[in-house]
Structures are given as C-alpha cells and as structure tokens.
C-alpha cells in the first residue's frame, strides 16, 4: 500500500503514532503466547499465559444460574417475548432495572456499607471505554492526570491516546511497600506546576493492579483530602473490588467520602466493570459512577460511543438482582481466589521467591531481583525474555507497569485450571533451582542457553530436575 511521505498526512496523527502503547513489551509476551500457546494435551511445551488478568474460577456458578433462569435470555422460548423490546432498546440511560441491579451488586461487593444511586450509573464499552470517557469529561488535550506507579500498562492507551491527556507518574517503591505517600503526591504536583502542566486529577486503581493490594482507609482519606485541597479530581478504578480474598477488608472511596469532612463530592468518580469480578470481559460491561451531576449528564451522552448491549443488560438485570446468587457468588469467588492464591504462593515460597503480600486481584507481584545480574531495567528485560522463551511463561515485567525499580514481575494465576498452575509452578521451580545452583557471580541465563535447553527436558510431570541430567527420551531432544 505504497503511501508516500505526503500521504501520511492523509491520516491523523493519532492513527499513525504509537500512543496506543501496543509496542510495549506487555504485548510482546502476548504475541509470543499467541504463536505458541500451551495446551495440556496438544501443546504441553507451549507458553503458559500468565500475563492475562482473567478470572476463570467461577464460570460454573454463572452457567448454572443461566441454565436455571432461561427467562433472563431474550432468545430462549421462555424469554423471547421480550426480544423485540430489548433488541430495540438503545436509550443511553440504560435499562432502569439494569442500573438498579448494578447499584445493588456494587453495594453488596462493598459489604452493603455504601449505597449507590442507579441514576448515577453510566454505561461504557468495558472499563477501557469507561476510563477514556471520564478523561474526555474531565480533561482537555494537554491536561494531565497523576497516577501512582506501578500501574496497568493499558492506561497509556485508555487515558491518553485519543484524549490527548498526559500522565504524571507518582513513584512509589518497595522501600515503603509501594505506598502512595502525601510527600510523593505533593512533589509530583509541584513539579508539574513548575513545568506549567495543568493537573486535572489523580487516578488510582483500588484494589491495585499489579500489586494486588487494597488501600487502607487512612491512605484513601489522605488521597481524598489531597485532591480536595488542590481542587482536582479523583478517579478510582475499582474494577477488582470483588477479588478481595483476605484481610484487610476492602474499603471503597465511596465509603471514605462519607467520612471526610467538607469533602467535595463533585470531584469523585468511580470506574467499574464486570470483567474481573465476574469474569466476563467478552460482554463489555463498563460503568462510570460519578458524584458530579454535570459529569453524569455529559458522560451519559458520551456513553453512546460504547453502550452495553441491551441483551446483556437484560440478562444482568436479572442475575445481579438475584440476592441469593449474588451473595453466594461473591463469597465463593473470594474463597476460590484465596485457594488459588495460597496454592501459588506456596509454590513460590518453596523456591524462595518472594512476592509482595497481597489480599486481592488475580495476580501476584513477584520479586525476582535476586535473579538480576545488575539491578537495571535492561537486565529485567533480559530476564523477562528468558522467562518467555526458555521457561515458556508469559509474565509481565515491572517496567511495562512503569515500576520505578527493576526486578518485579506480575504473574496471573486465576486464568487457568489447577493442573496448569502445577505445570507453571514446576517450570518456575526448575528455572529458579538451576539459577540458584550455579557458581556465585555467574548468572547462567546470561549465556546463550539455547543449546543447553534443547538437551534438557521440561518434563512437567516430575519434580525439580537437576540441571545436569538430561533425559535422553525427551521429545525435545528428539525434535532437535
């Protein structure tokens, strides 16, 4: 499609720049997985996907509910009498019963400690659409939002790409457990002002991706008072709210605003989605909840660009207002996440891999600093490439989350079955086992390992293997 230099002007800058962020390493690992995906029978040597924060643990509960509630679908004989009404419904207010059910669900997830007003619920194309929408409402091109690191890589696309908004990272590190401190916020804000950048707000994810932790009430309160003082917005992405599986209990910003004196509610907005809590990213259910009437008004009109499918609204209106189901689901989801989390952590502990203690999320924040030759991002990426191509696990390097210190990796554990978790853990154990047995000062993986690896077996059914005893019957050996 030969376009000359002149014809690049035929398209917009947005279409031709790379601010969609998909050239980041975050997606490289995904591509490696796509080319060689693990399958227990068909491709047991493939790459295991541990870079995708999906919740696959509770489908059986949802499937059972759907089977028992055929009226919730407009396509079944029991529900088809609603077909034309629902198929025709494109009102950007959304179905009232859907919003009622969402408000009810969001409240239940927060232990009933806060109530949500269905009239403040706006729909959007998943949390992706929701985050972009709130930026369009709150900021102009060139304005900036502060965002604590490490943060979800997709934010670069969602918050900045088409909106023209800038991100100002607020750094935290392990020295104080990645806490978002008042000092760090003030410093980042001050520097932005000095650089003549118009700061419109602060965006946090709570529970955090990639840390997997919930914010304590005091920190939340201090964030609220910070934005109040500076008269800037606070956007809280609470997409992982129902993935909290152990204490401390979850505290939503919605609870805190009731407790902060003279809180300017007009500055507070919540982003939500069912992609993580319920595990259906395919259905595209994103929500913007704002305490600001003007934002609700404007955002509602903008939701035309990404309404939730009416068929889905109808189904969820039924599902999420089923009190028994919701209560059971929330509890069971939590319980299974905890079980999966504990299993995975135990496996890591066995090879002395430390990780950031977490109580939520679908992943863990793994500390592999000891495996870096030098504490640099260059070495982090080298290690990452080995993990992808040699250990065959797609994990996400901390640098793709804008983490300020090298050596951290996000590893997802809720998007696979128990057997695959075992395979992954075995591979990790084997890899770390080899790394720690080598002579001091030499990091084996820094050498060209290809030949060595090909003669070694990754027999996932056995326990940790000695790096020096290849099994001659390995299919890998036969293949090379």
């Amino acid at each position: 499609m030969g376009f000359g230099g002149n014809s690049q002007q035929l398209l917009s800058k947005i279409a031709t720049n790379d601010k969609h962020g998909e050239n980041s390493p975050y997606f490289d690992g995904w591509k490696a997985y796509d080319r060689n995906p693990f399958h227990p029978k068909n491709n047991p040597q493939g790459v295991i996907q541990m870079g995708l924060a999906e919740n696959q643990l509770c489908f059986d509960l949802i499937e059972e509910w759907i089977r028992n509630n055929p009226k919730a679908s407009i396509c079944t004989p029991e529900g088809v009498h609603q077909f034309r009404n629902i198929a025709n419904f494109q009102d950007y207010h959304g179905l009232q019963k859907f919003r009622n059910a969402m408000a009810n669900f969001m409240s239940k997830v927060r232990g009933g400690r806060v109530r949500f007003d269905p009239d403040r619920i706006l729909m959007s194309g998943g949390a992706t659409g929701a985050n972009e929408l709130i930026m369009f409402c709150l900021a102009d091109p060139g304005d900036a939002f502060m965002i604590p690191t490490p943060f979800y890589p997709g934010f670069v696309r969602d918050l900045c790409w088409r909106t023209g908004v800038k991100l100002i990272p607020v750094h935290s590190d392990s020295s104080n457990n990645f806490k978002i401190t008042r000092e760090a916020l003030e410093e980042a804000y001050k520097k932005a002002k000095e650089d003549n950048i118009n700061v419109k707000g602060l965006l946090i994810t709570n529970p955090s991706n990639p840390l997997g932790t919930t914010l304590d009430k005091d920190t939340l309160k201090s964030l609220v008072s910070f934005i109040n003082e500076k008269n800037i917005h606070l956007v809280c992405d609470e997409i992982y709210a129902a993935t909290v599986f152990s204490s401390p209990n979850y505290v939503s910003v919605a609870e805190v605003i009731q407790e902060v004196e003279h809180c300017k509610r007009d500055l507070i907005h919540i982003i939500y989605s069912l992609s993580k809590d319920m595990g259906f990213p395919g259905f595209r259910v994103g929500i913007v909840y704002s305490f600001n009437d003007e934002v609700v008004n404007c955002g509602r009109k903008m939701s035309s660009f990404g309404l939730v499918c009416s068929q889905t609204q109808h189904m969820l209106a039924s599902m999420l207002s089923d009190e028994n189901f919701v209560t059971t689901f929330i509890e069971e989801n939590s319980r299974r996440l905890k079980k999966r989390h504990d299993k995975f952590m135990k496996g890591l502990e066995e090879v002395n891999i430390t990780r950031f203690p977490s109580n939520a999320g679908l992943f863990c924040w793994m500390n592999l600093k000891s495996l870096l030759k030098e504490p640099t991002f260059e070495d982090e990426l080298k290690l990452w490439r080995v993990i992808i191509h040699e250990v065959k696990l797609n994990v996400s390097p901390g640098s793709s989350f804008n983490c300020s210190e090298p050596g951290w990796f996000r590893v997802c554990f809720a998007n696979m079955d128990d057997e695959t978790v075992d395979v992954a853990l075995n591979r990790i154990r084997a890899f770390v086992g080899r790394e720690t047995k080598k002579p001091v000062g030499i990091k084996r993986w820094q050498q060209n390992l290809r030949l060595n690896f090909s003669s070694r077996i990754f027999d996932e059914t056995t326990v940790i293997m000695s790096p020096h005893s290849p099994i001659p019957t390995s299919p890998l050996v036969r293949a090379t």
Partner: protein
Amino acid sequence: MKLLSTKATCNSHGQDSSYFLGWQEYEKNPYDEVLNPEGIIQMGLAENQLSFDLLESWLDRNPNVAGFKSNDGKSIFRELALFQDYHGLPSFKKALVDFMAEIRGNKVTFDPNHIVLTAGSTPANETLMFCLAEKGEAFLLPTPYYPGFDRDLKWRTGVEIVPIQCTSSNNFQITEPALQLAYQEAKKRNLRVKGVLVTNPSNPLGTTMSRSELNLLIDFIKDKNIHLISDEIYSGTVYSSPGFVSVMEILKERNDLEDCHAPVWDRVHVVYSLSKDLGLPGFRVGAIYSQNDVVVEAATKMSSFGLVSSQTQYLLSAMLGDKKFTKSYISENQKRLKRRQRMFVSGLQKAGIGCLKTNNAGLFCWVDMSHLLHSNTFEAEMELWKKILYEVRLNISPGSSCHCAEPGWFRMCFANMSEDTLNLAMKRLKAFAAAEFNGSSCSKKVTLQLGFPAIVS
C-alpha cells in the same frame, strides 16, 4: 481553573437541537393505544420494527444459539465470556461480510480481514474521524444530514463539518458546484478538508444515491486527494427502484483509479450497522470497512473502546450465517417497508402533503410542508414544528435540525409503529393540514397542553 473539560461544558454534543427536544417531549407524553391515546406519536425515531417476527421465529428454530451452546450442544459460555479480542469472532465477521455482499446483490464482495467491529455505527463514525482527521480539519457533508453526526463526528474529535448545500430544485442531489463551493467555504474558515462523508441511502432524504452522484464524488476525492466515507447503514432498506448502488460497486467499475499517487481505493471507507436493516439497535453492532491497512489497524485498536459483545457476535454469526434465512429476510423486510411507505405516502396525499418523489429507501419520508409555513423562514418552520408536536401530537424532525438549506421540510418515520398507529397519525395530520390550509375567514385560538397558543386562521 475550570473543573471539567471543554467537551463536557460546551454543547457540541448537539443535544440542544430540536431533534432531541422533540424526543424529550415525547418521553413526557408518549402515545399508547390503551393507556394514553391522546399522547404524542413518535415519528422522529428511525427504527425498523416491521420484521421482528422473522427474527423471533429464527430464534425458535435455533435454540442452541440462545443457550450459549455450539451446534453439537456443547456449552461455550466460558469461551464467549472470555472473548475480548478486538479482531472479532472470525465466524461473525465472515457472516457479516457475506450479509453485506448479499444486500448488494453480490455485485461486490468484502474481505473479512478488512472489517473492524464497533459498538454501533455511532462509534464507527467517530473512530473513522479519529483516524482520518483532527482539530483544524473538516469533512464535507451534503445537507440535509442526520443530526447525530454533529455529535458523532465533531464532539470529541475536534473535527469540523462543512455543509455541501443541496436543494429541492434537483431533489437534493449532490452537484459539482455545490462540492466546490463547500470546499472553498472550508478554506475560508481556515479548515483543511480531509474528506467527504455521505449517507447512502440518505438519511433524512430516504433516497439512494445515483451512479452519477457517486462517480462525481469519486472524481472529486481523486482530484482533491481526500477521503470518502460512505455510511451505508440503510443499505438493506431499499424497497423500490432504482436499486441500491454502493460506492464499492462504482470503485470496481472504474478503470482510472490505479495510477494515482495515493490510490483512491485506500481512501474510500464504508460504515455499516445492523441497527436499521435488522432492527437491532440495542445490540450495538457496527462496522467499518476499509481497504486501507493503516486505517484498519488503527481502527481495530480503537475499537477497544467499544467492542461488540461476544454474546451478540456469536448469536449473529449463526443468524447471518444461515443463508436461507438472510435471503428471505432481506426480501420480506423490503416488501414490508415498501407496503408501509405506500400507506404513509397515500395518507400524506390525503392530507394534501407531498414528499420527495425519489423516496425509495430508509425508514422515513422527507416531507414537504412548505405550503403550511406562514413565511419562507426557519422561524416559521420551528413554529410549524411546535404546532405539530404539541397540537397535532406528532414528534417529527424539522429540516433545520438536519441542516437543510430550505425551510419547510420534515423527516417523518413510519416503520417504528403499528399500522393502526400510523393510520391515527395520518388522521391527525389530515385534520391539522385541512384546518391550517383552510384559508377560512374565522380565526381560532387553540390553547395547547403547555399553554402555547396557536392562531389558526
């Protein structure tokens, strides 16, 4: 420092226009055959409610799809629930392009790899703007045009619309002088023209574009080295001659497009949706079709902001993949639209009201009520519109909301109600028109529901 963005506080979402105000009035006092027989009849919403029974009976015959099951009865709920790949479900894209080809009499075919799925045509149009233009740039649109374009094309993108003025003298067809004038107008406003956007079949005209118009457009964009977007959302609603000719067909026919520096094929993009042809606006199914790889790539990434639900993709891949069904649906749908339009036009005639005689498509008529205006002005048009809204209790769309260059035209939808309701609407209109045009010596003051007095003389 202002708290919200400029976009949030301006009104270029266009929703202060009468198009939306009428909608609001309807919401306050909606007609219902039983519960509110004096209420306002909605004739401002271009919906296709004529063929739901065909879809419902297809669902009846295909229970597996309804229950998240594959053909062999296996549950695929999990796979669908997790599927968020912005490349879309391959089987759905295939079924969709086949459907699009079928609507065009298979005179053109579409490559599923060049289709981008979006949550309705609203984001499809906005996404194309984001890909092709930016602030300080403009697209030319023939008037009258769909009022929603002011929001979809301009609001968040910063792109401007410059009108190509069309008139009733030639049934609102696009002419070369009008194109050139619009291009110059943009220049005067210091806007760089990036392309032309047309709706074919046209909303609100309800007509298909002629071959000569389409060729004229291709000549124009070739000469100016700009884009052409053809919103073909109503392509399946063409019910009488001349049939539908897609811009893709014209491109295929021409043999002068290969030797350009920047190929014309790379600058023509089609927008589609199932909201009008299948009557499924609630399902949010839209698409962008382009031969331009860079556009497809960028638009695909942007579709993340509004993907089509996997549940819907699966359901429709089965429905549209049923070729026997699609063939009979397309033909039956068109028959019903034709019958309904005939009924409507005849009702208008009885009221002494005419409409665009080239009307052969869409879910509405472009109606000429200029003879009922007190003066040939848009003020008079708004007066008439208000009377029709509050007195006759019909919500219709005034031409000014569609940026029409001449006062007195109104878009009236006829496919979103039962036959009985349409008959009632025609009765009301007839009574009103007779009274308005009576020219009798007595003058009556009619106080409307909202106390808006209208003098009928």
